[in-house]
């Protein structure tokens, strides 16, 4: 029962956080709501028996990305103040796009549930909390096994990102605005 309550709490946190992060006017609040959402997703990972993923979510996302994001809101001239509104047409378009995206996503989900050949719609042995070690181990095996290539590529990806991010910051810290 508690588990069910936790589950719905996570769901609620995720959904509310996401909607809030997408809509609230105050950017700082939006970032905080994103944190809420991400935490909710981390919880859901636990329910999916993906404890490693949940950890990663908490560490990388909530720890890293969110902090970066919050920090970056300081760039903004209107961190807390009255945010200037988006043009109406763009807001309508955004809503339409979002609605259509939801439609597409929902339809795909529906098809998946109805037609997917090897998909179980419900968990076979409900109730138990995930075995952390086994899941993580499997991931590790996979990464040094048949997923070695993606793993290596991801390493290069992080290198590239690091080089890129650092040098951009370096280059722009040195120069001010050159073209008015």
């Amino acid at each position, binding site marked *: 029962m508690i588990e069910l309550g936790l589950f719905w709490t996570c769901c609620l946190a995720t959904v509310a956080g996401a909607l809030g992060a997408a809509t609230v006017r105050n950017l700082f609040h939006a970032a905080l709501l994103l944190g809420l959402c991400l935490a909710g997703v981390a919880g859901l990972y636990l329910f999916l028996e993906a404890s490693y993923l949940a950890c990663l979510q908490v560490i990388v996302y909530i720890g890293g990305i969110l902090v970066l994001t919050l920090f970056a809101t300081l760039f903004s001239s209107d961190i807390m103040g009255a945010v200037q509104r988006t043009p109406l047409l763009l807001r309508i378009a955004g809503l339409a*796009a979002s609605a259509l*995206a939801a439609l597409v996503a929902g339809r795909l989900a529906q098809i998946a549930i109805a037609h997917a050949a090897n998909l179980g719609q419900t968990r076979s042995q409900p109730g138990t909390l995930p075995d952390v070690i086994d899941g993580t181990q499997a991931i590790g095996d996979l990464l040094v096994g048949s997923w070695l290539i993606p793993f290596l590529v991801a390493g290069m990806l992080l290198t590239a990102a690091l080089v890129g991010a650092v040098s951009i910051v370096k280059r722009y810290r040195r120069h001010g605005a050159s073209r008015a």
Partner: protein
Amino acid sequence: MIPTWLTTAILFAPLAAAVLTLLVPRANLAHGLAATIMAGCTALAAWLAILVVPHGVTYQGPHIPWLDLGGFTLGLGTFADPMGAIMAVIVALLATVVLIYNSWYMNGDKLAVRFPWQFCLFVFAMLIVVLSDNLFMTFLGWELVGLGSYLLIGFWFAKPAASEDADYQRLKGVGARGVLEHRLSPAHAQLKAFVMNRVGDAGFLIGLGAFLAAGVAGGFREPLGWSNLTQLSLGGLPGTFLGLSGNELLTIACLGVFCGAIGKSAQFPLHTWLPDAMQGPTTASSIIHAATMVAAGVFLIARLAPVMTPEALSVIGWTGGITCLLAASIACVQWDLKAVLAYSTVSQLGLMFVALGAGDGAGGTTAGLSHLFTHALFKCLLFLCAGAVIHACANSQDLHRLGGLRKRMPITAVCSGLAVLAIIGAPFFSGFFSKDAVLAAALLHAEDVGGAAWGPFLLACAGSLLTAGYMVRWWIRIFAGTERDHTLTHHAHDPAWYASAVLLLLAPFTCVFLWSTWLSDALAAPHTEAHAHAHHNAMLIASGLLVVGAGFAAVVFAWKSELATTLARALKPLHVGASELWGIDRLYDLVFVRGLGAGVGRLTAFLDLGSRDRLASLEGAAPYRRSDSLSLDGLIDSIGRLCGRIGESGAAWHDGRVGAYLAIAAILGALVLLMGVLW
């Protein structure tokens, strides 16, 4: 036997003269050279005439294909028959004497050296028309004749328009109210002459095409040769062509060719170029615009007489009749001495067409040709005399101011008097003979056919009546009476001896005895009871017309000149109408020159490229104007502008907003997915 080189030599002698004189830098030498060659040419032509005319034979000279067009060929070749041979002699003879005369006439003119080669070129072209052995070659010569006329009318190309010419304004007659002075200059007259001739030539080409279509359909290899054309009319025609019966096709062809004749022979409604053509040297006019070129139309129709259908003939007759009266009426009120002659030429040519319109059966062809030949000589003489007068009287051409010149210029007076007697058809003069033949043919035809066929005859009679009047008036106002303007005429004298000799040489040809019977024999005029009867009647009528017309003119202009004023007042509408040239020049200027020419030209130019402002602003210097899209080019640019508009509305989506970019992409993508795949 006729030597095979003879016709060719006659034909190319003038061309040789033209080329040689082109290389001669001195005017007198050039004239002499040209005259010598043309004299030789005259001799050859006379030889040919002697060989051809008495026996009434036809001679086919060398013939070569010029264009081989698959199913048929268009060739060049020479051909001589009596009418052609006589015409050749007349052309060559007149050319020779005019060249001699001109060497006096243009003495001292800086441009004189150009005259012989342009003139000889014209003679060459004229001889092509005369000696060609097929209709196509005739057309070639026809067009080249137009070129000769063009060159010679514009001989003094640098002369300003009459409205800006001080000399003209000083000397002009007061009667020519219909003349558009701002358009009256050699440069304009040559253009007008050429273009109006081209109007006729367009018809000629259509006629040529119709003959060709008929001939090709009939399977002729050389469809435009004279003999083949004759065969066409004799039943060689295809049954139907383009939904036209053979006869209809032939009528169209004949009328088309007649259009060419209308243009070249200055018949109504294309007659207005000829008076303007008097802007050229009088010597050139004497042969081109009086004696030969304008007669080419008559010659051509006579040549095609065997082919002519009755329908075509009646159109020819009516056109001639109308022209005859119309031009005569105008000539009556002209005060420019050359203009009178010009309109009289038009009128006489109309008379010839009346004869041709009467048809071969009624003797019309021979009558028309006879009048053509006699007219050629006396009209040339008249022009040369007119030239002498103009030359003698400080370029004055005004019948108001001339007068009493018979004492100062006796030779000229006598010669022109003889020519006037000839043209009015006085007995014992050549015109009497030929005009009688014309009226006889028209009368016979009218009696035969009846009804509307009387029209040409009556018009011709009226024209003849007026002719007698205005020609007598012309002579009286120049040579009779007393001097009116001493300053103009007191230096007057006859031309130099060799020019006077030319006048005297031509004078005998006004005499009937040089022509009469041998000419009608040579031309194979029909001699039947009906013809004799018609001749008898026509002679009576002609004599009556002559007496009335000439007598009236003599009374009015020599004796009671106030009567003329009274008469003019009494017949004011007619007088004004004729003075205004019946408004035809003004109408043409309005409808064709300013309307269909410049006006439609400007309009189409606007419809094509747009206004001048648009052209000035094409690089984007000036803003785009909506009205310019009306033009074709503007429309094309509108397509470009539309592309630009589409592009701009497309570009408006690329407005730099990342959010919008994603929204659009998501919406479009989702719609494609939803509509194409998911449902």
